[in-house]
């Protein structure tokens, strides 16, 4: 059988070989002049202060959690959209094919509305940043 995934695998191989080829061409062409000042990270020309391996505040944490729920929901909608039209053409009634999905989407919309009202779908200001803002004013 001419399996399409073998063909996709072939493109994956080409897709990796092309960048690797460019990397090796560049390796042959480019100069190498190591100097100490060059290798510091860019911070608008200043001497960098500390690194980025720190604890930080993800201000869209709740949004990310919601995303996981909704992403799975889209996966569940996929098969329904595929069979929807052919099921209707083969005489399945609208009640049978449309109503369950409307209920499913309805539940999600209610969930989204609840998250929206509770302020989950927004950019959260960290307590520290908020207090610094207050003291400034």
């Amino acid at each position, binding site marked *: *059988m*001419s*399996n*399409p*995934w*073998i*063909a*996709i*695998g*072939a*493109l*994956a*191989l*080409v*897709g*990796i070989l*092309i*960048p*690797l080829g*460019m*990397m090796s*061409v*560049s*390796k042959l*062409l*480019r*100069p*190498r002049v190591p100097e100490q000042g060059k*290798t510091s*990270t860019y*911070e608008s020309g200043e001497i*960098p202060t500390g*690194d*980025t391996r720190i604890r*930080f505040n993800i201000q*869209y944490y709740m*949004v*990310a959690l919601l*995303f996981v729920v*909704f*992403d799975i929901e*889209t996966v569940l*909608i*996929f098969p329904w*959209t*595929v*069979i*929807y*039209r052919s099921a209707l*053409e083969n005489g399945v009634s*609208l009640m049978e*094919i*449309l109503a369950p*999905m*409307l209920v499913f989407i309805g539940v*999600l919309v209610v969930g*989204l509305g609840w998250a*929206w009202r509770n302020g989950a*779908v927004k*950019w959260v200001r960290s307590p520290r940043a908020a207090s610094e803002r207050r003291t400034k004013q």
Partner: protein
Amino acid sequence: MTGPLQATTLPETLSGLLGLNTNDPLQWFLAALIASALVGTLMLTNTALVIWAKRKITAAFTDRIAINRVGPFGLLIIVADAVRLLSKELIVPDEVDRPAYDLAPLVLASSALLGFAVIPMGNGIQIADPETGLAYVFAVASLASLGLVMAGYASNNKYSFLGSLRAVAQNLAYEIPLVLTGVSVVIFAGTLRLSEIVAAQSETLFTLGGLAIPSWYAFVNPFAFVLFMAANLAEVGRNPFDIPEAPNEIVAGYMTEYSSVYFVLLYLGEFIHVFLGAAIVTTLFLGGPAGPVLPGIVWFLIKIWAVFLFTQWTRSAVPRVRIDQLIEIGWKGMLVLSIANLVLTAVIVGVLV
């Protein structure tokens, strides 16, 4: 083997020409490899042209002349730029996270190229036509955000780090509206196979003064088309949603610390990704490679360049939104609209069929 109704894919045509046996996995892989090299070269040529086209287009928008010295219309600048960028010194900053730092450009460039495997480009140029083509192409297209996060985190630079955090936030905001709008097309077509989605759009919608208007889903469902174009802008990270890069806020975002060939790969990968987004739009909403007079592949290229021109137009004309605004646009605007679009499409199809 594939049925008689299905269009043959490029590896199948090639194995026919070269006398290879498609039932033998090795020979089939060889044919697919040649086809992949052809498609990969075609797409890379397109992206190389971007180096020139992008400057010319932006110059036209801002009333300048731009490159015109090297070669006709300055076209040879592509060669000059390619050699110049590849022969730059590769500066790896201190304390970068080494495997991730090297892999990020690779992930970005190859994942974008990988998506073209299932895109029908006309004249039988399509590497594979799996049953789950649409799901595959969405999955591969969103791999790029992984590359952005790797690049940003590994660089050990604060600007890069901010850029990668923004890339994640952006991914969260647009991904669901994009996919939900995409599947509203599947309700019409009833299949995830991209060649069949294209075939379903070849029927005549209505005749206007002797001109047969095909039932491209952009005409059938213009609302979904507009929504998808907006979500697609966010997916490929162009203005007004080019937040992960934001050249005048966070230097160059995730690519701040990249130089030489790594920068080329990130830049190239980004534009292959723009073309992949354009190819998805073309396949789903603009009838794929269909069009009068000219051969399919030419129409396909015209359409993806048209979508590319659109991204360049928004780049010149629309201001960037803030990241918190993007989250609100995504979750309070586009998600609600895309759910409404899905439900309305289902109801309309249900009443009409």
